[in-house]
């Protein structure tokens, strides 16, 4: 098997696992933020545990010399002080509007939720509008006009410690905080999902950085992220004879399939649709905001919040904080949206 085929198959397997875990556990940052506002922090703790796991695993593999994270998209010599936070806010608020991020929508799609078909399509279209379409020249102008150089690109450089040491200093306390809640400890569905989702991030780095390594035709170092890959998946479905399959697209396909299989096994597959045009419009606008915002912020709640954070890149921290702020604004405060009970799995 060629190194490219190997990377793609690894992507499918990683996607299958993510889809299965996401379906069985309801792993979701938005749910974490919304539930936390009401006093139940278990989903948020699962997300933080995933982040800590990803951070420890990634930095450990990097310290062993398997790959150099400076080749990833998150470690950049400069970043835009305007586009990145703006994108994070857009993504976070759009996530609240559409009631779930890109990855969550893929999982729900596999469980028979037709609303998420609309979310996935509009997210992918929004991403490509900003990435290479009509908004791309404006995005590039904005990014260049507000670009500031980064003398130190990651948190490890800032405190002058090796990455694995910083990962331990940050990751272990975050994991300890997650487990400090008795409710969380008593909910294996949540902490197991955090551990598995978190370990899929280093698995993704390993797939592209080690399995995909070739001196002459290298695969771009990447792990889980769900903005550009959803757009690329839509494009691949339409143009597959003229393009080549990528790792991100293989993951997206794996997630839908993994969620479908799990939903069928758990007898949790239910056809669901929109209840009215208002709900549909809200999902469409939210998904477009996620697509465009996700490109400006260089990633989504998972792409920046877990994968980007695992590289310790400073812009990832900024993006994650802005995504959280955007989501929080959608859940609580003057800009808060009325809760769409029906858009969440209604029997919860």
């Amino acid at each position, binding site marked *: 098997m*060629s190194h*490219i*085929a190997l990377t793609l198959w690894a992507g499918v397997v990683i996607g299958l696992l993510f889809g299965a875990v996401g379906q069985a556990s309801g792993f979701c940052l938005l749910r974490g933020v919304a539930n936390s506002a009401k006093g139940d922090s278990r989903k948020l703790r699962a997300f933080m545990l995933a982040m800590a796991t990803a951070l420890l695993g990634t930095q450990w593999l990097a310290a062993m010399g398997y790959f150099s994270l400076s080749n990833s998209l998150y470690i950049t*010599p*400069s970043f835009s002080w305007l586009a990145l936070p703006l994108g994070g806010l857009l993504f976070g608020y759009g996530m609240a509007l559409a009631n779930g991020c890109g990855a969550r929508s893929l999982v729900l799609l596999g469980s028979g939720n037709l609303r998420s078909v609309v979310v996935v399509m509009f997210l992918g279209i929004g991403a*490509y509008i900003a*990435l*290479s379409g009509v908004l*791309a020249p404006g995005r*590039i102008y904005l*990014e*260049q006009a507000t*670009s500031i150089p980064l003398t130190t690109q990651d948190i490890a450089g800032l405190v002058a410690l090796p990455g694995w040491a910083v990962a331990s200093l940050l990751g272990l306390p975050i994991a300890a905080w997650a487990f400090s809640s008795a409710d969380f400890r008593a909910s294996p569905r949540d902490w197991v999902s955090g551990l598995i989702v978190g370990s899929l991030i280093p698995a993704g780095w390993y797939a592209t950085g080690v399995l995909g390594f070739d*001196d*002459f*035709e290298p695969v771009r170092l990447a792990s889980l992220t769900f903005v550009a890959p959803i757009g*690329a998946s839509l*494009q691949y479905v339409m*143009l597959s*004879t*003229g*393009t*080549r*399959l990528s790792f991100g697209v293989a993951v997206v396909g794996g997630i839908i399939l993994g969620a479908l299989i799990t939903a069928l096994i758990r007898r949790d597959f239910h056809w669901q649709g929109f209840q009215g045009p208002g709900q549909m419009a809200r999902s469409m606008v939210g998904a477009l905001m996620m697509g465009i915002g996700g490109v400006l912020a260089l990633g989504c709640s998972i792409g920046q919040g877990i994968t980007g954070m695992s590289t310790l890149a400073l812009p990832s921290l900024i993006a994650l904080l802005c995504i959280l702020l955007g989501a929080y604004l959608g859940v609580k405060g003057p800009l808060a949206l009325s809760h769409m009970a029906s858009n969440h799995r209604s029997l919860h």
Partner: protein
Amino acid sequence: MSRSWCIKSALSRRKVLQHGMAGVGLIMLAPFAWASEAWQQLDAAQHLLNGETPIAQGLALDLPHVSEDGSAVPLGIKFDGELADNDYLTDIHLLATGNPQPEIATFRLGELSRYPEISTRVRLNETQHVVAIAKTHQGQTFAVSQEVRITVSGCLMRGEDSQPEPLSNPRVSVNQQVAAGDALEVRTLINHPMETGLREGSDGEPLPRHIIEQFTVRLGDEIAFEAQLHQSISANPYLRFHLTPQQSGELVFEWQDDQGEQAQHTSELSVS
């Protein structure tokens, strides 16, 4: 994996077309179809063809129909047409219809590269046609063109990424054992920014042109393969080609850039 598939499907499509044409009498229409071939609208191609009408079968380009990264589009070129007994290809020219300069690369094939199958990575700054023109020792010409849709222009790529040290880390992959007459696959890569001279740096000043212009492979004293590269070749030039060595010797690879600097790599080759 998809690469070989593309070449095959392009060939079979051509065969289907040939049969179809004979049946339906489309031969009448063929001249009109030819009038729109990309190489007829490109001055650089017309200059190479020098008034001759090229044979449109035999040469096959392998390019994605859609590319998401115009700064490194994988390109393959292969010849499996028919030639007279003593005839062989002497050079293959690659041209782009929509780049600031049409020339991408010229490959000079010697006695030792009689199996023309070459791959590289090229820059394309917009949706356009790529044209390949091949000439033979006895003066025949072949041409082929293919459209590539570019979704992110090679020019949209931001230029602040860290630049590789020019001419550092030459890498060559070649089987050290080969049977005489068999095609030997050679893959080469070297670090080089291939700065086009068309971009601006972060200070707004144009970055000076700095590219590898010449790549030469020698077996003993004989030139086995030669490539002239232009700024449409992607950074860190990658070249894959085939040699048909008849005897053992030392393969010497040499890259030379426009500032006169050069890098070398040698591999021992044993032909049985």
